[in-house]
């Protein structure tokens, strides 16, 4: 039985909007040209592949449902109370493999000593074997060799998946171009295609091999170790992807209407309209952001504890909190874009084509939509992609001071927050922090590289024509 969380609905709405925009952009030369320039940039396209990988995982993790429970009476179907996502089904083994507490990456023994009662009545202090990590090994001494051996089928499977997908891509490309598959392959290898398919396929290969290898090994080992309550860190890091993406994109969805409408209106009408809008955003800007977010989250918590009956599950509560965090971040962050748009609109409203439209008696709304909005779009585009990585990082900062997403929800911020204590103990538990760091770095770096390419393509000062 499917369950649609608020954020799930919104993220798919956003997906729909992006699809509609792509369809719209394909028919408009002035939008198609800069995007084509982005498409020709090899670095940007590798970044897109990495981003797509994150996005697919995030979307899979946004399709929630109550799983069916097997009963004796098979005519009637029953559903569990638990809510899981499609991603959970794919990674089913991971949440089940919990240990007692910390264990290092690829470990076979726990990270902490335990007192063990032997059958003969003696007691010893030793590192116990893990219940799931490396249990297939008779002799833990062979671990290194075993990892290598297990890596081979993992990598082979990754290569196989890569080749299958690549083959399908090449086939489609060949058909579109009207050449043979081997001919298309030759073009790609010799880098003679319009899009840098050579780079795209290589990046795809690297990402797929790495992921399939990790996925395969995660059946036998905790490849990123386990946390304090014995949960697999690799699983947490993957589940965090959805949270990061939500914060990065939904916030934009919230702030965009404010920024666009108010910014363009302030710049176009000037006078008292401008005064009021300016007043609002200078006031909003002068309130410390963290303070406002903390206040909003605390208020929400009070509300939720007073109305605990309204929420059917903890997951719903956590989701509402995530949504509110996006809203409040959105309200905090529209001012920057609004200010940029106001300035640009003020410049544009004096330009001749706007005056010409006024001389035709075109209405204000039409002028704003037809003449002003399309001509400030490059600023919107640049700001959105630049803001994305900043917001993903902001989540981590907020979680660190405990006003981020719900503690029960996996997020890189929460992982880093818990690492505060882990780093202070001896011996140090470093893998939670590292895993969060590696996953976040992958996303933010890809987003930044992509943002750079978008800015280069859209900024009229850099662009020619």
């Amino acid at each position, binding site marked *: 039985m499917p369950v649609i969380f608020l954020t799930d609905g919104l993220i798919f709405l956003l997906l729909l909007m992006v699809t509609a925009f792509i369809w719209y952009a394909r028919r*408009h030369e002035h939008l198609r040209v800069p995007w084509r320039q982005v498409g020709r940039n090899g670095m940007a396209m590798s970044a897109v592949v990495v981003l797509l990988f994150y996005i697919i995982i995030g979307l899979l993790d946004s399709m929630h449902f109550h799983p069916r429970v097997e009963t004796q009476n098979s005519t009637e179907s029953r559903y569990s109370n638990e809510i899981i996502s499609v991603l959970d089904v794919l990674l089913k083994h991971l949440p089940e493999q919990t240990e007692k507490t910390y264990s290092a990456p690829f470990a076979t023994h726990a990270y902490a000593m335990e007192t063990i009662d032997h059958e003969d009545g003696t007691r010893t202090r030793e590192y116990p074997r893990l219940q799931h990590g490396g249990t297939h090994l008779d002799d833990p001494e062979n671990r290194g060799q075993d990892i290598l051996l297990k890596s081979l089928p993992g990598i082979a499977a990754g290569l196989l998946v890569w080749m299958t997908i690549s083959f399908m891509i090449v086939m489609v490309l060949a058909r579109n171009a009207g050449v043979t598959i081997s001919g298309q392959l030759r073009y790609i290898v010799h880098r003679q295609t319009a899009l840098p398919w050579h780079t795209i396929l290589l990046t795809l290969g690297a990402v797929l091999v790495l992921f399939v290898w990790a996925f395969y090994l995660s059946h036998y080992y905790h490849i990123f170790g386990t946390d304090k309550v014995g949960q697999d860190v690799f699983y947490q890091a993957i589940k965090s992807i959805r949270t990061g993406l939500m914060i990065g994109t939904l916030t934009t969805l919230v702030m965009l209407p404010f920024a666009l409408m108010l910014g363009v209106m302030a710049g176009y009408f000037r006078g008292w309209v401008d005064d009021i809008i300016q007043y609002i955003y200078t006031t909003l800007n002068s309130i410390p952001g963290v303070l406002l977010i903390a206040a909003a989250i605390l208020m929400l918590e009070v509300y939720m504890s007073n109305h605990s009956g309204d929420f059917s599950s903890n997951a719903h509560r956590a989701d509402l909190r995530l949504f509110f965090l996006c809203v409040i971040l959105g309200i905090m962050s529209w001012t920057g874009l609004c200010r940029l748009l106001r300035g640009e609109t003020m410049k544009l409203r004096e330009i*001749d084509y706007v005056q010409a*439209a006024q*001389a*035709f*008696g075109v209405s204000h709304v*039409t002028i704003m939509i037809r*003449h002003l909005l*399309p*001509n400030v779009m490059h600023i919107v585009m640049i700001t959105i992609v630049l803001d994305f990585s900043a917001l993903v990082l902001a989540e981590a900062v907020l979680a660190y001071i405990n006003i981020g997403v719900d503690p029960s929800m996996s997020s890189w911020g929460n992982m880093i927050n818990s690492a505060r204590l882990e780093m202070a103990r001896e011996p140090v538990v470093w893998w939670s922090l590292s895993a969060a760091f590696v996953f976040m770095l992958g996303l933010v770096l890809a987003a930044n590289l992509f943002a750079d390419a978008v800015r280069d393509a859209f900024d009229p000062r850099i662009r020619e024509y």
Partner: protein
Amino acid sequence: MTHLLEVNNLTTQFGSGERVEAVVDNVSFSVGQGETVVLLGESGSGKSITALSIMRLLPQAARISGGDILLGGDSLFTLSERAMRHVRGGRIGMIFQEPQSSLNPVLTAGQQIGEALQQHKGLKGRDQLLRAVELMDAVGIPEPDRRVHEYPHQFSGGMKQRIMIAMALAGEPDLLIADEPTTALDVTIQAQVLELLRDLQKKTGMGILFITHDLGVASVMADRVAVMYKGQIVEQQGSDAFFKSPEHEYSIHLFNSLPNRDKRIRDEKTAATMPDRSGKPLLSVDNMKVYYPIRKGLFKRVVGHVQAVDDVSIELYAGETVAIVGESGSGKTTMGKGILQLLEVTDGNIVFNGEDLNRLDAATLRKRRSDMQIVFQDPYSSMNPRMMIADIIEEGMLAQGIGSGSSDRQNRIDKLLTDVGMKPEHKLRYPHEFSGGQRQRICIARALAVEPKLVICDEPTSALDVSVQAQILDLLNDLQQRLGLAYLFITHNIGVVEYLAHYVAVMYQGRIVEQGAVEDVLYAPAHSYTRKLLSAVPMVRTGTEDK
């Protein structure tokens, strides 16, 4: 005789690999001591790149691929970059077109001249200041002792150009390269700057390489003229011979494109037939005022007004052209936009077809807008770059409800484009795919789409080359005769007035100082400002006049 500057077979290319384009193609000329050579050509002919090649200041995409440049016998291309720095500003001074952007706004005039003095003359401290004052005095800046400490924004455009000249002269160069130094200036200021340059040349004996697109300016300045066309020098002559009998067909074409009274008579356009001025005027403006309040203090109290347009009255009849002439800041554009109600008019009656536009409510005014249209100066900013030509032209029709349906409007667009000399298939393109002249044609088509009776032309040809300007003026003339349009033609170019207008009004500081028939005002000016303006216009000494 050895020349000061000798350019031999200079070739400068843009791009690399297969897409090489020679912007300067095998150009040779020389400049002697105390001589002024004018490099004449339209935009894109390679004049500026020639100058930059001499200075070795080319943009990154360009490179010199052949030829040699000798300055007083030394080859400039063999010098090291270090030695070249002493040549720039030291032996060759350069002034640019845009004085606003050539000066650093955070340094005083004295500091900027001083920088050149220190670099090339090693002057420091008090000596430097004294010399800067001396130079400012030499370029005719009043009160140089005081103004040496002022910042660029405190100087007017003409004064800024004088400071640029002072900087160029600081190194006491043998050769001065002036790249369109007066294009951004008003005619009266232009006349002063040109005179200053000639005076300075007489005193110092330097050679001047003067780059311009303006035949009039060339005629005033040149000892010798070199005409550039598509990267090549097509004709090189002594000034007198050139203006008497240009040889190359391109030069002759340039002379023929020049709008003036001769051309009007030659083309038999509008000519002597003055339109009928009986009956009711189409537009009559009475005592129009546009004031901008000056606000000061905490409560933004109004302490005074900028009188952009002050008490202006003018009449316009159907089918005639009235030109508004004036220098920048005289209020002519403000007046045009005020008549169209594109900005708020403080006071006065603007009666169009019997209705006072100033008193109409917004909805009625919106309907009346189809009767009056405007064509702007800059063809690059007057069309939304995000819209196709068809949508641009259709916009006015949609807003005014003209045309019975989409297909009818498309047919009208096709016809309009044909009328202005474009092709119907152009309508599916974007503005950036067209040249300046073509864009101006599209703008005219856009204005005509709503079937106006009056078109306000706000310097529609100022951003265009002479030959393109001639085509656009031709088109406007043609359309007037076919459609009976009235034009309010705003311009600073006296030649255009002579060629196109029936009546003319001269504006100065927001007021109309003189108006009347073109013949009367231009050939027997009554007001002192009109006389000053007319005498400042550089006249081309054509062969016909001499006879």
